[in-house]
Structure formats: structure tokens, C-alpha cells
């Protein structure tokens, strides 16, 4: 079906279902309860999950398949964002032209960056991409201010030409929309003490994410995908087999650049503003972390990694010492203070510390990322089921699962 194998269809269906039901799944705790702060089912965060999911899915096509580690992919995300906002200023607040232009411009830019950076491999390639990204960041801040808005960035203004849109009503502000459907529109559903929010923007982004995920599966399973893995495995053999590894790597680079641009365009569609900080090197590093954390070279890993990092960034970072005190309130006073003092560095502003530790643990103990963790747990269950019969080692699973 749709050119996918049985297992891939199952995987895709699960992801689709989870994405559609995310407003429920991410809001397991009733409003007003102490645990409600762990709810992640609010539009802004859900949008981030899927947008960074797209970013990581695309990055994985380059890094996971070919092994080329780019340290500058945020540049394509940023360039996509700028392209999108200009579409909104010049043409229309409809998100379609913005998103399409984001992909095209990021794709073109990645042809340039890829063509030059791919003359080298390994650490030199990584440095070249990093240099390009930092250059873009610096330019956006300085020389290119007329197109980037410099430090303040860009947002749609009432005075923008917007050729395709009619004049705005008096006092109205331009809103991103999909043929009139406001991206900010939300439907709230209260069930008992629970409150679930269904946001138009989220569902648009989620649909795009599912489409991107589908494309990624197709690429992974195609002859082209095998060639990309061949690049990672043995370029020498590849060349002596009559294949030119360069265009394959460049194609992967450009595809991942276009995914980054798509993510950047969607970001603008959800929240109509751009600033250069989007291209800062930490943003490039983040997508590397997401991919490795989830499992580079796996289909679903990057999405998991993106979700995990965004969850920590938004939820763990919100925990402050007051909250910790209420958690440990049942303990005797002295002990409570000690525990709070011990946990405090890892939450709130210290969430990076927790992320760092989690990352180290994963890299050391689960080199295949969260996906490998999941597989190990599954294997444990399977082995238990098979207990008794001579325990043959579980067959090594397909590398790109």
C-alpha cells in the first residue's frame, strides 16, 4: 500500500494516530491539579513537537543515512523562515506560498552550502557547515538588516503590500491562515476536569509532518536510500562499483536542507515573526542532539528525540523551587530542604544539565538512541515469552528500522 511495506505502514499508522490524538495524549492530568504543569498539550508546544520533528527527520536523511554530520542546518531553517515571512509581507497571509517559498529558498541555499562543504568530509565538513551557518547568522544581524530586520527581526505589518490579500479591517492585525482558517484558532473541549485544546495551526503542521515522515520512509526504503547508506558504509567500494558518491551526498544534503526550510516556514506560519537567533549555532547543535538522542539512521528516532528535547526545554524548565517544595512537603523539613537543594540544579534553568546527563547516558549505554532502548525492551518481552525454548539470540534487526 502506498509503496510501503507492512511494518512501515504499521509504523506510519501509529505515528499518525499519536499525532492526531496528541491533544489528549499530551494532557493526561486534570486542570488545576498539581501535575497539570507536566501537561504538554497546549498549541505552542505541540506545534514545536511536530515542527522540530520535521527538522530532525530531514537532518536524519543526511546524517543518519550518509553519516555526514552537518553543524549548520539551522541556517536553512532560518533562511526558510525569512523567505516565508517575506511571502507574508509581499503576497498573502495564507501560509501556503510562505511554506513553499521557504522550501525552495532553503533548497537553493543548501545547494550552495552543500556543494562547497561536501568537498571535505568528517570534521572538516562539519566545520565548513558551521562556518556557513555562523556567517549567515552574522550577516542577518548586520549587513543584511534591510532584508532580515537585524536584531529585531521581521513580522507582518499592517502597512505591508500583501498583493493578494484585500485591505484589512480597521484595527485588525494580519493573521496567518490557510485559505481563511486562522492558524491561531483553537477549539477547546472540557471533559470533567480535563481541558483539551485542538488548534488549527497544530493540525496543519501535523499534516505536513506526516507527509514529510511518509516521504522519509519512502527515501529510506528506496534504491536511493540504499545508496546513501552505502556512502556511510564504504565510499571507496561505492566508487569502485561505478557510483559517484558526490551527487548522492549532495542530494541528501539538499533534501535535508529543504526539510529544514519547511520547518522554518512552518514556524513562521505558526508564529509570524523571525529573528536571526534561529540560525545561531546552538540551534544547529540541537538538531544533532535530537537525532542522536532518538537514534540516528532510524525512522522514528529523530521525532522521538525532538519530542524529548522540546518537552524538557518547555516543561522541565518550568519547575522552580516552590514546586519542588510542594512535591517534597511530606518529608521532614530538614530533609525536604536537602532534597530540594539537590534536585534544584537539574530543573528550571538547569534543564540543560539534565539534558546533558540524559544525552551522555544514551550515547554511552544506548548508542542506537531511544529507539535502541525501545528495541531492547521489546526483545526482553519477546525473550520472556520464548522462555523455555532454547534461547536463540534475537535476530539482528534491520538497521534502518
Amino acid at each position, binding site marked *: 500500500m502506498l*509503496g510501503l*511495506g507492512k511494518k512501515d505502514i504499521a509504523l506510519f499508522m501509529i505515528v499518525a494516530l499519536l499525532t492526531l490524538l496528541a491533544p489528549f495524549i499530551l494532557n493526561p492530568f486534570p486542570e488545576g491539579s498539581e501535575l497539570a504543569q507536566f501537561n504538554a498539550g497546549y498549541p505552542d508546544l505541540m506545534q514545536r513537537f511536530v515542527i522540530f520533528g520535521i527538522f530532525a527527520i530531514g537532518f536524519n536523511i543526511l546524517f543518519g543515512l550518509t553519516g555526514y554530520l552537518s553543524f549548520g542546518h539551522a541556517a536553512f531553517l532560518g533562511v526558510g523562515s525569512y523567505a516565508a515571512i517575506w511571502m507574508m509581507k509581499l503576497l498573502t497571509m495564507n501560509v501556503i506560498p510562505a511554506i513553499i517559498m521557504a522550501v525552495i529558498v532553503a533548497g537553493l541555499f543548501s545547494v550552495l552550502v552543500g556543494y562547497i562543504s561536501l568537498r571535505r568530509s568528517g570534521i572538516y565538513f562539519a566545520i565548513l557547515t558551521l562556518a556557513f551557518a555562523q556567517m549567515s547568522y552574522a550577516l542577518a544581524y548586520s549587513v543584511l538588516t534591510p532584508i532580515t530586520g537585524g536584531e529585531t527581526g521581521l513580522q507582518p505589518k499592517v502597512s505591508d503590500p500583501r498583493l493578494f490579500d484585500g485591505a484589512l479591517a480597521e484595527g485588525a492585525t494580519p493573521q496567518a491562515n490557510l485559505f481563511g482558517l486562522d492558524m491561531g484558532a483553537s477549539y477547546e473541549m472540557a471533559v470533567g476536569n480535563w481541558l483539551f485544546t485542538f488548534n488549527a495551526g497544530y493540525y496543519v503542521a501535523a499534516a505536513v509532518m506526516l507527509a514529510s515522515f511518509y516521504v522519509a520512509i*519512502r*527515501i529510506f*526504503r*528506496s*534504491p*536511493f*536510500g*540504499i*545508496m546513501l*547508506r*552505502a556512502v*556511510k*558504509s*564504504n565510499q*571507496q*567500494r*561505492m*566508487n*569502485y*562499483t*561505478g*557510483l*559517484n558518491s558526490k*551527487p*548522492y551526498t549532495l*542530494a541528501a544534503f539538499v*533534501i535535508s536542507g529543504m526539510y529544514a526550510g519547511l520547518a522554518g516556514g512552518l514556524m513562521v506560519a505558526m508564529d509570524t515573526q523571525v529573528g536571526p537567533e534561529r540560525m545561531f549555532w546552538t540551534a544547529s547543535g540541537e538538531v544533532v542532539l535530537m537525532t542522536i538522542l532518538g537514534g540516528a539512521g532510524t525512522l522514528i528516532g529523530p521525532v522521538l528525540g525532538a519530542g524529548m528535547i522540546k518537552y524538557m526545554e518547555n516543561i522541565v524548565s518550568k519547575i522552580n523551587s516552590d514546586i519542588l517544595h510542594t512535591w517534597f512537603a511530606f518529608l521532614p523539613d530538614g530533609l525536604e530542604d536537602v532534597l530540594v537543594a539537590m534536585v534544584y540544579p537539574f530543573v528550571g534553568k538547569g534543564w540543560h544539565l539534565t539534558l546533558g546527563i540524559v544525552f551522555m547516558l544514551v550515547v554511552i549505554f544506548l548508542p542506537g538512541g531511544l529507539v535502541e532502548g525501545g528495541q531492547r525492551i521489546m526483545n526482553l518481552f519477546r525473550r520472556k515469552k520464548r522462555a523455555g525454548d532454547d534461547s536463540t539470540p534475537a*535476530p*539482528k534487526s*534491520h*538497521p534502518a528500522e
Partner: protein
Amino acid sequence: MSILEIKGVSKRFGGLKALDDVNISVAENAVHAIIGPNGAGKSTLLNCLVGKLIPDTGSVTFQGQSLLGIKPHQINQMGVSRVFQTPEIFGDLSVWENVLIPLFARRDGAFRMHAFETIANEADICDKAEQMLIDVNMQDKMHMHAASLSRGDKRRLEMAMCLSQEPKLLLLDEPTAGMARADTNNTIDLLKEIQASRNITMAIIEHDMHVVFSLAERVTVMAQGTPLVEDTPDNIKGHPKVQEAYLGGH
């Protein structure tokens, strides 16, 4: 008629003359063996044929076309495949995928953006890959990671990859090293059969004289970068210079 013409090829590595005025002509559809002690320059010579090294002097022509300065993938696309002395396979990929890649390369050329095709739909290529694995008796290992194969199996896989491309010229660098006797004999049979049925010219470097004498029609003996003699296997056996090179070379 000769398909491969090596004329006056020399190659130095610093002060070491790895190849010194090598002249070899390989006849079309022949199996030409190159033997010689370790360090004689046999692998270096192959490197000069496939675009890995550029000789300091001399010329290499394949079917009348010069191979000097041509990229490895282009030389392969001209019909030259090589089995390396240390197996070069796609270790992270399955045995099955390892055989698919050369088949795609042969059909689609050096680059093709087949990102939306599915392998299952490529019946032609899948059939060929399957047949190739059966030919080298590895069909039961098709789902294994290539890196986890034994040394002998890696060689057979690499050979299958090269043979599946149906090259005009197949270069084999010690194809049976590290193989069990039975596998060596199977390999000899396989090469003989393929050579007879598909008209593949082979240049084979080999230390195992059993393999050399079973396959080759011509033998070149090299020592210290220079070919000493070239003759039929029977004449080579008792040649005094050969004895000298092998015994004196160590």
C-alpha cells in the same frame, strides 16, 4: 587481441620503486595471472589500472582508451570491476543490499535519484541479485550484516558484487586468500564457469598455485616491481627465473 595494454608503467613511493617499467598485455577473454613474492608491486599495478593511483610514467589502455586520469567510478562504468586484497564491502548493509548496489550501478549509471522507487518493484534486479547469491552459495546469508561474515564469505560476497556487474575485465587481488580449501575449489569452479559463459577477461593475482594453474592461460611473474617472465602455466612451473624470484626474494 588485447583488451588491456600496460606499457612502460613505473611508480615510485619516495625512494621505493614499486613498479619499474611494467609491460603487460592481457588478451581478450583470457585469464591472466600475475604472481610474485610479497611486495612485488602486484596490488600497486592494479591500483594504477582502476584510478586509485596515477603511474609516474607509462600508459594504460583498456579497449584502446587510456585509463589515466579517469575517475574510479568511470573506469568501473567502462566495464572494469575489482576485487580488493582486503575485502571492500558495505559492512553496515545486509548481504542482499550489497549485491543490489552494483546491479543498480550497472543499470542506472553513476548517479540516479531513484528516491521514490521501491526495491520490491525492481523484479529484474532482485532476480539477478538472488541468482548471484545462489551462484556463490550465499543465499542463506542474504539477511546477515555483511560486516559479520567470515573473511572467506566477505571475499565471496565481493566477488559476487563484481560478477553481478558482468564486467568486461575483472581484476582479482588474491580472491581465495583466507578461504577454506572447499571454498577455494568452489571459487575456481565459479570463475571458470562464469568466464566460459559470459566472456569475461580476468586478471588475477594469486599466491595459491593451485588456483593459478587451474584458471590461468597466461602467467606473468613479477618481482621487485618488474615482470620477469610471461608464459603459459606449464612453462612457468619449471622456469629457473621463477624459482629464483620466489626463493631469492625472501
